[in-house]
């Protein structure tokens, strides 16, 4: 199995797999993450998985780059080809359109589809979470149906409400917290995705899959009331 190990300063190393956004590559990242995390607390302090790479923070008092490079190379070679057990599938309820997804209309028009068709297509498949980044819990999802590819807004919004589900170019995703952003908003989830009070736990991790489940406005309000 081919991967390069690169130094990242004096406290981390980056394992670089084949540079393409694809499930098979990402699965290798997750498989390696699992192996490396077994060493956490000893030499390994933390890992940050991305589309096609794994960043490994190490303790510079207990190890050094040369031995980390050797160790990571060994772990990479030992990775088995083929499908590994995939992560969980997490259902994210979404109220599509209206004030919750102001750009649904635009996305539908751009695609030459009805709003219902956009919702059906968007919620009709599971999306792999390749990585989390940008903001806590912001998932980089793969596999958006080509028909829904929509350019980002010309003028990004200064404030996007937490839980917004959007489409930006060839990607779809969720804003777990309020933030500025340029994606087309098609809906909103009533779930509280950002809850640092429970120790930073999230409903999903990189490697899991997300399934969007359409819900009514009444259901949305009910679910929001549950945690607010």
């Amino acid at each position, binding site marked *: 199995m081919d991967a390069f190990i*690169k*130094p*990242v*300063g*004096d*406290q*981390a190393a*980056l394992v*670089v797999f084949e*540079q*393409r*956004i694809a499930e098979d590559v990402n699965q290798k990242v997750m498989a390696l*993450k699992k192996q490396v995390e077994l060493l956490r607390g000893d030499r390994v*302090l*933390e*890992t*940050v*998985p*991305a*589309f*096609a*790479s*794994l*960043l490994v*923070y190490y303790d*510079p*008092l207990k190890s*050094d*780059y*040369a031995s980390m490079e050797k160790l990571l190379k060994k772990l990479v070679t030992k990775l088995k080809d083929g499908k590994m057990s995939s992560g969980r599938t997490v259902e994210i309820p979404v109220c599509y359109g209206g004030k919750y997804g102001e750009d649904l209309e635009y996305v539908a028009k751009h695609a030459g589809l009805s709003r219902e068709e956009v919702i059906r297509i968007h919620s009709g498949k599971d999306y792999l979470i390749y*990585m*989390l*980044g*940008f*903001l*806590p*819990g*912001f998932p*980089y999802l793969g596999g958006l149906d080509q028909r829904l590819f929509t350019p980002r807004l010309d003028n990004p919004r200064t404030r996007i409400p937490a839980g917004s589900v959007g489409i930006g170019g060839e990607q779809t995703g969720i804003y777990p*917290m309020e933030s500025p952003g340029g994606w087309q908003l098609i809906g909103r989830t009533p779930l509280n995705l*950002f809850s*640092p*009070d429970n*120790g*930073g736990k*999230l409903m999903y*991790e*990189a490697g899991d899959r997300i399934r969007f489940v359409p819900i009514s406005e009444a259901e949305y309000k009910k679910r929001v009331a549950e945690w607010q």
Partner: protein
Amino acid sequence: MAIKILTVGPLTTVQDFGRSGFGSRGYRRCGACDKYSMQIANILAGNMEDCALAAVLEFTLSGGKMEFTDNCQIALAGADMSPKLNGNPIAMYRSVKTKAGDILELGMAVDGLRTYLAVGGGIDTEKVMSSRATDCTCGIGGMDGRALREGDVLKTGVSGKEKVEFVITEEMFWLKKPSHPYRSVGNQLLPVLRVVAGPQEEAFTKEARENLRREVYKIKVDSDRMAVRLEGPELKTKEGSDIISDGIVEGSVQISSNGLPMVMLADHQTTGGYAKIATVISTDIPAIAQRRPGECIGFEYITPAQAGEAYRKEVRKLAWLKKEIVMKQKNRK
């Protein structure tokens, strides 16, 4: 015991070593930009064992006024903000005893950019995900996840039994600041940041790598706790600076589409989509975190092994200070 904030400067936050361990979920580390000065301040304030854990206040560019509600021990390190206690000048880099009602005043930084105030027992705001570091972007940690304002009251912890009293004198100048090389340019000494070649080094032209090694870069005014933005000779990539996003660290030297480098600091995002030509070693992060807009810096390549050695040397400096303090205490007994 508490600190009452009477007036504030442009950006004052509660910081510690950072919220590490949650990068895979997209949580930024944050923490003190100059972790060396933070630790020196903590040691002098009596937080010897906890010097990397006890939370401190980080002042940017200027300080402000604050009142101590009780007797305590404090220390200041980093940029010199001409501190005054009840109107009388006090020295940076020394243990200072304060009494209830004492007022500490910090002015404009006369050198450097960031000053650290440590108090015995540390600033005791609630921990969020095992850290007190303020993450202003996500609104967590420190004082309600935001910069301090007038009227804020910060609880402090219980200080340990160790009665530390120590002054870092002029002869110990090497202990005050983090170690990094200089280079003479004309008749000036240019601070040089040591870097290890970055994960996308090959994406850059040979000229870009030469530029980074030889040229002088100026700190831009839009620098902040997330990144120090630099201007200088362009660092060109062979085929564009966009990459498939990967993990970044404090010190990553990212090159955006305009060919200009930015050095990531404590508030950096966990991942990024720009090519990284190099990584500033952790030992030299404080040096750039203390430089102001308009100031210039250079870069110098070293090997990962040399970077590891530099780190261990810095750790030994702190250990030396702790040992001196312990010896002084013993002698007194």
